């Protein structure tokens, strides 16, 4: 295979592009904006790895065990083993391309404790690990751009894939500069488009990650997996424009959660789970905060100004800037909020979807994290997934005859023009806000059948509106045409949540509070002529 199209230029997209280019493949790296705007820059806490020089009795086996346990048995033994076994190599790679890690007294990358992990194995760059990795990868991508092997394509939004008979031949991109749809043919297409934030309105993540690619490709026959598992990050701060993440690094460095009762601090996590209570997995901490039904605070002030400035400067800045809180003197009011999506494209161990030649990596793919992700594993998974997909693509030799997609492209272009030429000003933003309200209400930390049914009913109604009404022609066409895919994904998420009649990891059903041994399998959802069909992957289709 020679030509690769990577859609999305955050960490996983760049990792795949660079790896492909290093093996001599030609890569088109398409995204609406440069990598500096990707959600990857918001990853704060760190990246997990067990290094051979590690001296505290940690082991790769322990990293695997923690990840599988954190994922409540759904992570996939083989997938997680591969991830953890390659973590050291990935960390060394990041060092070799110049990532500015925080270092210890010997000049070696420093590490901190993170939730749900038996050992201290999260390597970090202050509280801006994602940003530092993005900066290093941008330079590495530039190296291959200079060599003519990677071509960035900005102002490009995904529209649909060019698929025939279960094989992907490229994608249709909407070009903001020329304002039309353009086909890009490739031997392999790699989706690296991030999570599904827009389903919930403004989350801790980027407004650019909206889940459209997952919804649209689902309609085109691509299976999705584990959509019901949505991570609520336990510590987010309310501000006037969104809920902002207070990195798990704050608790990793010793931060304590409490609420006030009769003027006294109650350290509820420590009371219930002991000394390491603040570092339980995110699903557990979020649920415990939710169940207190009180205003909860995170205190780091006792760490002292020097340590806070040294290890958590970004958290200090953020609290001061957006809330006027001085974390060296006062606690931070926190509450759980939607942060990460364990579900996404169903992919096999090589990161390929059920459509041949179509791969998915990073947060848009459902892999490694099972029912709940451990902090520090998402950056690792983004880099590892990018590498695995690239190696599979490079090693594949197959003759492909490209079908004629002219009529499909003409049809899509016609539909788009028809919508754009309308004078109607019905705002898509309105429907998106309604959707967010529904999802926040009906798909919260604690779910039950009645609320899920109500959510499904609402989303079906929005889908009906979206298809019937014309769109606002004063906003970017992407914002208009993406609505249907986003709503379709939301419908699929609710359907998966309804189908899982047990509680596991981040999915908690008040009407089915127990974890059932016979349901320890991934949920897969397929779209069949407008119907949503879910099934438990008992055969391990996506574990092979």
């Amino acid at each position, binding site marked *: 295979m020679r030509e690769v199209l990577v859609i999305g230029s955050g960490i996983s997209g760049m990792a795949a592009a660079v790896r492909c280019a290093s093996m001599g493949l030609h890569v088109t790296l398409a995204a609406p*904006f*440069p990598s*500096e*705007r*990707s*959600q990857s*820059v*918001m990853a704060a806490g760190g990246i997990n790895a067990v290094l051979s020089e590690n001296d505290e009795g940690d082991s790769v086996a322990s990293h695997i065990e923690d990840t599988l346990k954190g994922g409540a048995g759904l992570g996939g033994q083989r997938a997680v083993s591969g991830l953890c076994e390659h973590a050291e190599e990935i960390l060394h790679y990041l*060092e*070799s*391309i*110049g990532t*500015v890690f*925080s*270092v210890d007294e010997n*000049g070696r990358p420093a590490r901190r404790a993170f939730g749900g992990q038996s050992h201290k194995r999260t390597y970090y*760059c*202050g509280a*801006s690990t994602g*940003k*530092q990795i993005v*900066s*290093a990868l941008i*330079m*590495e991508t*530039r*190296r291959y*751009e*200079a060599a003519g092997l990677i071509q*960035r394509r*900005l*102002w490009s939004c995904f529209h649909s894939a060019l698929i025939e008979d279960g094989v992907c031949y490229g994608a249709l991109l909407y070009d*903001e*500069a020329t304002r039309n749809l353009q086909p890009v043919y490739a031997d392999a297409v790699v989706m690296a488009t991030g999570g599904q934030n827009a389903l919930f309105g*403004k989350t801790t993540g*980027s*407004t*650019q990650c909206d889940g459209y690619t997952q919804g649209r490709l689902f309609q085109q026959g691509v299976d999705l997996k584990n959509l019901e598992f949505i991570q609520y990050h336990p510590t987010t701060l309310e501000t*006037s*424009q*969104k809920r*902002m993440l207070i990195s798990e690094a704050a608790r990793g460095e010793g931060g304590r959660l409490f609420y006030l009762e009769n003027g006294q601090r109650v350290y509820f996590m420590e009371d219930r789970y002991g000394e390491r209570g603040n570092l339980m997995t995110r699903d557990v901490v979020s649920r415990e905060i939710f169940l207190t039904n009180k205003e909860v605070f995170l205190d780091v002030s006792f760490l002292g100004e020097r340590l806070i400035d040294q290890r958590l400067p970004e958290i200090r800045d*953020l609290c001061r*800037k*957006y809330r006027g809180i001085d974390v060296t003197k006062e606690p931070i009011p926190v509450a759980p909020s939607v942060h990460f999506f364990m579900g996404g494209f169903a992919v096999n161990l090589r990161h390929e979807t059920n459509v041949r030649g179509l791969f998915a990596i990073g947060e848009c793919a459902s892999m490694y994290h099972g029912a709940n992700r451990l902090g520090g594993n998402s950056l690792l998974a983004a880099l590892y997934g990018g590498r695995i997909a690239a190696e599979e693509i490079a090693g594949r030799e197959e003759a492909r005859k490209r079908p004629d997609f002219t009529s499909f492209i003409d049809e899509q272009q016609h539909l788009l023009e028809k919508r754009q030429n309308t004078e109607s*000003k019905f*705002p898509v*933003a*309105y429907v998106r*806000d309604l959707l967010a309200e529904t999802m926040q209400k009906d798909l919260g930390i604690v779910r039950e059948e009645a609320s899920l049914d109500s959510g499904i009913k609402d989303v079906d109604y929005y889908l009906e509106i979206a298809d019937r009404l014309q769109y*606002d022609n*004063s*906003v*970017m066409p992407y914002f208009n045409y993406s609505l249907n895919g986003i709503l379709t994904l939301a419908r699929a998420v609710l359907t998966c949540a309804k189908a899982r009649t047990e509680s596991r990891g981040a999915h908690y059903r008040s009407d089915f509070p127990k974890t059932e041994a016979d349901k320890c399998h991934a949920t897969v959802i397929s779209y069949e002529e407008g119907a949503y069909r879910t099934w438990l992957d008992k055969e391990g289709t996506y574990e092979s």
Partner: protein
Amino acid sequence: MKVRIQRRIAPVTAPYWEGFTYDGPEDTSVAGLLDYINYHDDIINDEGKSTTRIGWECSCLQGICGACAMVINGVPALACETFLKDCKGKELTIQPLQKFPVIHDLVVDRTSIQENLKKTNMYIGEYQQGEKQGHEHQYLAAKCLKCGLCLEVCPNYVNGETFYGAAFANDCYLVASRNRDKAKDIKKIYGEHFGGGCSKALSCVDVCPMKIPTMASMAKLNGGRV
């Protein structure tokens, strides 16, 4: 609050000013204000006429992606961390960055920043530690958002054809400090596209959202040790 926004439908059309009366919450940022105006079913300008939604870019909404760089009351800044309570005067003016081609309203094309870095092969390659003391400086340099605020405010930066500005200078420092084999070549390129053209107004330092010590980068590249 009165708000005046410099708008443009498309790159080929002429810019124009449009006024709005903002009656939303005051404890928000300029990003929050733009969101508020755009949210309504019908957007009405201060002449009572229906108008179109205001185009602007955003991603993180917390000052770490650089998407929402614009000129607010004459000062280049990120909309998501410029708060209404800190804006002086009765009227708020919002313009797109003036030194980049406008795509639509407040959305500009900042490709030239990336292109200049690409043209000059600005990448680390194989990491080899240079100066040992500069870790904090390198950490800050690598936080550059490529938002363009430093270029907008710079009296020497025109359109990036010859003088590449502070964003370039800080990347030069980062590469030279993380790969000592490249330091010599980088210093030369730095001299050609920054060192020789900078009049040291240093307004770039004041507007940088990441507080990158550009002066220190310059000192190290202008003959100092990297």
